[in-house]
């Protein structure tokens, strides 16, 4: 398995690299020591679970899911492929980021001013706007491709 020429691995070196590495390790070490010193609050085992889980969730779930989504949409017509993929990515992002407020898990009966909006409805409105834009982009690209095809003939 070799790297493509454009991304030949370059071993980090030089005084700037080592200075940054030592400084960075010191700063991170301060963070580790602080987290341990306040272990009654940081619950190290729980924190490690969520920290490692964050990295694993991205590298083993989110990114592979994006690869699968790209593969699943590869048979779409060329004019639709890119807008649909980007619209899908944006929709998933907005849905995931705002899912906690849409579900309103943080509402409490004595604080009606917290999470007071119709978040589910708002999400539907935004997603409809995204897919209207996707539809418009697909149509524009299809028309442009047909014109190009006609001009080539």
């Amino acid at each position, binding site marked *: *398995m*070799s790297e*493509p020429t*454009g991304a030949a*691995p*370059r*071993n*980090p070196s*030089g005084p*700037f*690299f*080592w200075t*940054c*590495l030592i*400084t*960075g*390790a010191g*700063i*991170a070490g*301060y*963070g580790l020591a*602080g*987290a341990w010193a*306040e272990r009654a609050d*940081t*619950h190290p085992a*729980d*924190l490690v679970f*969520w*920290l*490692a889980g*964050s*990295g694993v969730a*991205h*590298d083993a779930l989110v*990114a592979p899911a*994006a690869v699968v989504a790209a593969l699943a949409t590869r048979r779409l017509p060329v*004019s639709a492929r890119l807008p649909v993929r*980007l619209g899908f*990515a*944006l929709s998933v*992002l*907005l849905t995931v*980021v705002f899912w*906690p*407020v849409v*579900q309103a*898990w*943080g*509402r*409490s009966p*004595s*604080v009606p*001013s917290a*999470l*007071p*909006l119709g978040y589910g409805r*708002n999400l539907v*409105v*935004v997603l409809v706007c995204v897919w209207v834009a996707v539809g418009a982009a697909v149509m524009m690209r299809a028309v442009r491709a047909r014109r190009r095809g006609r001009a080539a003939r």
Partner: protein
Amino acid sequence: MKRSLVADRLRAVAAARDEALRRPVHDARTASILGVCLGVCFLVCFLTGLFSHLQQHPVGWLPIPPRPASLYRITQGLHVATGFATVPLLLGKLWSVYPRLFRWPPVTGAAHAIERLMLVPLVCGSVFLLFSGVANVSRWYPWRFYFPAAHYWVAWITIGALVAHIGAKAAVARAALVRGGAGAPAVAPAPGRLGRRGFLGVVALAVGVVTVTTAGQALPALRPLTLFAQRRPDIGTQGVPVNRSAVQAGVVDLAGDPGYRLRVTGAVSRPVELTASDLDRLARREAELPIACVEGWSASARWRGVPVADLLIEAGVDPDDGITVRVESLQATGRYRASELNHLQVRDPDTLLAVALNGAQLDLDHGYPCRLIGPNRAGVLQTKWVHELVVSRT
């Protein structure tokens, strides 16, 4: 047989990786542009986060000044808005460099191994900070740790890993950012396929959507577009949102008790004791001050109250004498049942024990009979249902 199947799979992954790395979306220039943007956002979040930490964990050698009055409103609004904006940026960056995760051989030397090892805290920490931050401002707590402590210490770990990453990548990034430099894609995108501008444009669009639909909780100009923020600053009792209700704090009976007294105690010449109506009679100063929550929302309001400095003079204490005041709530338990005023805050004439909000008597949920409101303070330090001021000399 089995081995050749595995070898085939590995070859396929390598081919896919190499093909991806030739596309502009995954090249060094795209990764560098996103990296620079992320670096700026992380720096903003880190500095504003430090300021918020300092507010809640004051240190003697760096007292928080009471002016400018809206400083915390701006820094914390920026902290949360930048955090939201960083979510699409980080996902874009990770997508851009994802093929490099499958580099083979994984490391080519000791320095390279250390550099890649530092990516573990960088990636885990970055995703964790954004996930926990977004969950916190959505008032959702699926974990057991105390959010501010975990978020704060992981920020140090992540920033440390980021400094090491900058050291390793600065030269590569600089070369990639030079026009026509090493970052130029090996092949230009085919017509109709995603190029660098398209990819960065979509990331920017996502940043815009996320920002515009949430930042109205701090920026009045964006209020009509507030679709996903946990608050709209004009929705709440007396036109101001509430973070903790009297029911949650367990103070309903004590705050409504006719036997309520506000006491000024500690290092005083003569202890002061005032009823709720005494306080209302003394409350002649009005101030326009924001409530600025650590969760990013803020709302400006008109308060009427008694300056803390006036109460100290009443107790025979000179407010300019370098004293600090501990403000105690009727709330029996909880991390934020008391707060401290440093010697600069004590002196400020707008540091009030407020009894009225926007022209009406303070609602029970806003801290009746009286609450602390002071300039440039985090919302959790604007103690409600105050019943005692304890003076100490520094």
